[in-house]
Structure formats: structure tokens, C-alpha cells
């Protein structure tokens, strides 16, 4: 089928303002949007800049806006879009560096701010083997371990557009992953961090994050669980 691909372009060394380049191409409905961008690079304009690596939705490199909504370019197929015109733009809320590449700095800073690592200073089991954890305890937080830090969620969040100091859904998801891990002892610290101005209270349940998450994580639900833990003083 034929599609019209409109791509956001911006070269900081040449352009004052961004522009959109249009490419008409014949594609397979099963092609990924990432494939289309690769065709552009191979056959039309090799200077198009974007990040990508795994090409099957597990590395988190290529989150971008496609027809106005955040996706991983490698996880959205042409046929999923139901449109002859496909517009590809960089993520909102982060500084555009070049074409589809944005500055991920603030995103990773927010991620780091919630202490995203296991905290447990208690002695290890005497036999040197694993800490025990039942399947139920593991399932409690399994969902949020799936996060690939692609930023599709955080950059779809109106609260983050307004102020990038809001830690954002991705950071909360990663805090959730540890708060509800029965082996972790740092829940208190993280909850106190998220209880601050820039924390969970900025979430207005706008839900764009959950809709955008390519890993199908129930983000808003996870955020709500964190809020609940803060209010009740109980991690369940």
C-alpha cells in the first residue's frame, strides 16, 4: 500500500525552526514504522537521525510520537494506524536535539531520584544461596519489572509536559518495582521521596501513560498503589 510519511526534522546546526519532510512510499501493511524510517534512511535521506537498536520492542530506544500518540516505532505496524498519512514526531516534554532524538537527561535523572535498586543490608542466607521469595510475593511486583525505560509514558503525561521535575510515571513504576519486592527494605525512603511536591501527587490520573506503555504495564494502577501505601502507611 502507499503511504505518505511525514517526518519531523530539525538540525540544530542548520535550522532555526523544525520542518516536516514528506516521503511517499510503498509499504507492506505489516511493516513497522521503524522499517519505514529505515527505508527513508536507506533510499531517501540518510541524514535522518533517530535512536533504535533491538527493533522488536525490548530495548526502549525508539519511543516517539506517531500520529500524535506515543509508541515504540518498532512496535507499531502500519496496519495498526489505519491511516494513509503517518506523521512521526519526537517525544514531547524533552528537548529536541536533532530530528527524532531528544535529550533523555531529565528522564534518567528522575529515574535515579527514586533509588531504583534493591536496598537490603540484612545478612544474606547463611548457606550463601538465594533469599527465599514465594511465587505470590514475586508476582506482587512482577508487572513493574517489565519496564524498559523507554519514556513513552513520562513524555505523554500532561503533568510532565508542564514541569519536567515531576518524577513521572516511569520513575514511579520503577519505585513500585522495589517498594513491593518482599526482599527490599528501602520502601520507606522511596515513599517519602514520592510524597514530596514533585512526587506522586502530581499524577492526575490522565492515563496517557498507561495507554502509551509498550510493555502493557498498568502504570496508573501502580501509581495508585504507591499513593495508597503512602496514605495508609502499609505496603501490601
Amino acid at each position, binding site marked *: 500500500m502507499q503511504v505518505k510519511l511525514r517526518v519531523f526534522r530539525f538540525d*540544530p546546526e542548520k535550522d532555526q525552526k523544525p520542518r516536516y519532510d514528506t516521503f511517499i512510499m510503498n509499504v507492506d501493511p505489516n511493516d513497522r514504522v521503524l522499517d519505514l524510517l529505515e527505508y527513508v534512511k536507506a533510499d531517501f535521506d540518510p541524514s535522518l537521525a533517530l535512536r533504535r537498536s533491538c527493533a522488536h520492542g525490548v530495548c526502549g530506544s525508539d519511543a516517539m510520537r506517531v500520529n500524535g500518540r506515543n509508541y515504540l516505532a518498532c512496535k507499531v505496524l502500519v496496519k495498526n494506524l489505519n491511516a494513509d498519512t503517518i506523521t512521526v514526531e519526537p517525544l514531547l516534554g524533552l528537548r529536541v536535539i536533532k530530528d527524532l*532524538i531528544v535529550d533523555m537527561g531529565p528522564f534518567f535523572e528522575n529515574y535515579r531520584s527514586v533509588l531504583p535498586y534493591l536496598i537490603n543490608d540484612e545478612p544474606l542466607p547463611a548457606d550463601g544461596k538465594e533469599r527465599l521469595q514465594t511465587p505470590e510475593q514475586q508476582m506482587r511486583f512482577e508487572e513493574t519489572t517489565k519496564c524498559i525505560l523507554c519514556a513513552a509514558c513520562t513524555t505523554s503525561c500532561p503533568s510532565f509536559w508542564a514541569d519536567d521535575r515531576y518524577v513521572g510515571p516511569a520513575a514511579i513504576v520503577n519505585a513500585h518495582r*522495589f517498594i513491593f519486592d518482599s526482599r527490599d527494605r528501602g520502601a520507606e525512603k522511596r515513599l517519602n521521596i514520592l510524597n514530596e511536591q514533585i512526587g506522586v501527587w502530581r499524577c492526575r490520573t490522565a492515563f496517557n501513560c498507561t495507554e502509551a506503555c509498550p510493555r502493557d504495564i498498568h502504570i496508573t494502577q501502580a501509581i495508585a498503589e504507591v499513593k495508597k501505601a503512602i496514605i495508609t502507611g502499609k505496603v501490601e
Partner: protein
Amino acid sequence: MENFHQYDVIVVGGGGAGLMAAMYASRTAKTAVISKLYPVRSHTGAAQGGIGAALGNLEEDRPEWHTFDTVKGSDYLGDQDAIEFMCNEAVQAVYDLEHMGLPFSRTADGRIAQRPFGGHTNNVTGKPVRRSCYAADRTGHMILQTLYQQCIKNQIVFYDEFQAMDVLIRDGKVAGVVAVELATGELHVFQAKAVVIATGGHGRMWEITSNAYAYTGDGAAIVARRGIPLEDMEFFQFHPTGIYKLGILITEAVRGEGGILFNGKGERFMEKYAPRIKDLASRDVVSRAMYLETRAGNDVNGQRFFYLDVTPETVNKYAELDGRTRPDGTPYRVTAEEIRSKIPDITDFCVTYLGIDPTREPIPVQPTAHYAMGGIPTNKFGEVVIDSQNTVLPGLYAAGEVACVSVHGANRLGTNSLVDLIVFGKHSGLRAAEYALGADFTPLPDDPTGYVREQIDRLRTGSGKERAAQIGRELRSTMFDLVGVFRTEEGLTQAMEKIQELRARFREVRVADSGKVFNMELMQTWELGNLLDLALVTTRSALERRESRGAHARDDFPARDDVNWLKHTLAWLEGDSVKLDYKPVVITRYQPKERTY
């Protein structure tokens, strides 16, 4: 000097191997990691099935069995001292990962869950053993995340989106690394006492591949251009179950959970090729079986693909036929729900890319380029060795897929790469730090960035008669058709000619984008150059090896030849030609035997 940095240890690569090395090196040495991708984007995150270790959580298992299986899987080309070391270390390594917080799937009594995987057996009964420790079907993702988290905790210094382009060596010692900062296009010089290369593999030179775009063999190509040989490059693994046409991997764990392969006639063809462990035979065996079936006209619709079936009906039917039981002795039976919970990501891939639910319909699969057994030669401490006498190059280390220890020999067993990353990543890091403690900085060469600038200039000033994208396409199809699962003298010779042609044409390429900021065109063209170098080495090494062993299957020399070829290839890239030498395989306990499954 601006853009100059000094560290005791520089780790190039932020995947599993690199992060492991950095974590251990940073305990005693000033360490930094350079990575062209954000570390969490590394290909380790794509690993699905699991990490092998003889924990014996569900049934009896021993590191010795793991060792033997690995030796056998390697078609006896693996160095047995290193394999034994790795399999013994694996157990503690997995516990270490758990202590770092890795969310393994669990057994009912709270231990790390384990599943069967290709080639891993109980050495007494010969039956598959549950050895692969897993976190659903995203074990690699969890390893990568966990290690990155620990690096944050330990405040490791990262230079994210810095692409290494050269290793500086002076007076036979490592002096540092030259890297380009992608965001600015500036060159940076990192002076270091020790450098650990952990840049992963080069599977992007094949058309159908499970490998990431970033898998362009940068590390191997960089050191090869500095006169260091590459070992066993002819051995590249083709995984039998890539999604048809796309190459996306369907982990062996699908067969571990009971999935069955069928040909176009609806036959379970693996019965013919591996009567004992059938669908769980080692990867080279299954990929070859598929190729042979295709040649016999047994592929589906004559389109060179097969079906991998994990619908509960099929799984249960064949589990009954095979007499498969659960650890507690009850017959093995599954529901669609259970399958989905064991392989959620695979289910997701099938739904997204094929529009099918794998618990209802079979998955179309074909062999896909997957893993480089060959790479930068090292000993079991991760020290790079540069000749047949295993002479160490002081200060240079390599770990992970880019390295060839060699623990995988001619064919890697599933789950063993993650073990390799963790074990040798750790030890290379420890060794590098130890070395740095007792060493001085080697003075930098006069113009440290000269060689890199020369390479860049060439890409910017070519005649422009040729297009990189076209050369890349031709390279990938040539490699897939002629240097793929099966090889012949004729095909390899043809491939050599084609690669030389492509290399000549590559000199006519000119990068159009003259900018500095995120000049991806420049970097990707440079990466194509790396692939062209490694393709040359691979093909030449394959042409010389006149036997079939593991992943290297020669139609014209179908048998393994231990008399002449039980040895590692060392290949030096010298301009447009390749110099070869060989070194013996370390054999300790297990004498080569015929390999059947």
C-alpha cells in the same frame, strides 16, 4: 587538553559483560563505562530464556554435568579449563544476581525456578535437565536492569552515547580509548591503564537476524585493525526459531516448555535428527535439520519455514508420548494460561508482529543469525591473548559476546551466554583493576585521535559514487546465502569475491550529513565498515576450515575432523587480506567423542 579523561580502567560497552566488569573493577580502581547506547538499551536486554547454572533446585544437577554438556555442545572445540571454571562459578554468580535483586521466577518453596533448555542434560539418564534459571521470558532484561541498578547504587561513572572508535596501544601495552561523543560529534581521549572491551556481537551482517541494529562488531573490528587476531570467527550460531522473515527470536524455552517443531508435512522432524532429546537438541543440530528438511522439500509451502507449536493440545499430546513428568513425578500437562504466563513476551511478539496467539496457532519460524562464538581471544581471566602461544597483551581485556574465551567452541548452548557475561565480565573487571593497581599509565601516542580522524575523513571525502545502504544490503544477503547455516567451498569463494568487491565499493561512499550533532549517518557508515572487515575475516576463516563442526557446517566436508581441525583459528586482518594461524584446544577431562542427541 580538552576532552581528555583519565581512568584506571575504562570499560567499553554497557551490556551485561560491561556492567559486570565495571562493578567489580570500580571496587578498587577508578573506573568509567563508555557506551554507544544508554546501557539499558544493550542487547543483553533481549535475552529471553534464561541463565544456566546447576543449582539443582528442582532435580539433581551438578556443575560437572553442565561442564560436560557445554564441552559436548561446543563440539569439543571449547577450552575445557575455561568451561569448567565457568560452570563452577555459574552457581555462585546466579546467587549473586539474586542478592542484587534480580526478580527470578520462583518455585513453590521460594527458590529460583529452573527450566529445561537445549543441550542441557542429566548426564546419567541423558534426559533434559532443568538448569536454566529464568525470570519469565525476559531473563536478559532483568539481568541488564539489575546490573544497571547496582551501578547506579555504586555510583559508577558512565559516558552514555559515546562510541568508541579506536583502542590506543603503545609499546605493546594499552594506553587508552578514543571515542566520539554522539551528542556533539567531539572526539574524546580516555587514557587508561586497563581497557575492557565488552561491545557485544556482530550479527547484523546477516539478512535474517535476531540481533539489534547496534550489533555491528565495533569492538572486534577496532582491535583487529590494531593488529590483534580474532579467534574462531567462522563459528556463528544460527538459532533455529526466529520469526519467519523478521528474525525476531523465539526462545528455546518455548521448546523447553513443551513446544514441538513440525515440517510442511506435519511431521515432528526432530525425531529423525535427535532421537533422544528431539526438539531440545542443540541449536546447530536443529538449524541444520531445518536446512536438510528444506532441501528435501519438507518446508512449509516450499517457503523455507517451519512451524513451532506450543498450543496446549500439541504440548500435552507429545508430553504424553514422551512420558514427560513434572518434578514431583506427575505427568506433565499444561493449560493455555500456564503457557502464556511462562512466555508472556513471546506471546506479545506473536500477537504484535504476526497477529497470532501462540496458544492457539503454531508460529512460523526459520533459522536466524544469532550469536558469535568467535571474537577477541582471551584466557579465562578475560586477558586478551594475541598469538598461538597465548601471549597476553598487558592492559587489554575482553568479555561477553565480543570475546572468545573460548567456552562456546563451535556452538554455544542456550543460556550459556548469560553465564559467560556474568562470570567473565566479573573476572575481567577484577583482573583489570588488579592490573591497574600495579601499573603506570602508558604515555599516549603523539596524535591519539589521528587514526580515528583519518577514518572519518575518508568517509566524508569519498567520491560518493556508491551508497552505503546498498552495500549493506548486498553484504547481508551474501552472508546469509553463502556463509549461513550450510557452507561450501564454492559458495565461500564466491562470498570472498563479493566481499572484496563490496569493500572496494565502500571506499567510494560519502557521508552526506556534514553535521556534528548526532551524525548517525556517519556512525552507521563507519559501523558498516566494521561489518565488512569482520565479514572478510569470517568468510576467510570459514573457507579454510575444511570440516564440519558445530555451527560451521560444510556440505563438502560433512564430517568432523579431529585429526586436522581440533584447533582454534586465529585470523589477523591485514588490509584487504587475512592472515591465519591456529592454536590448540585445551582438553582436560573429556576426550572428543561423536556428538549425538
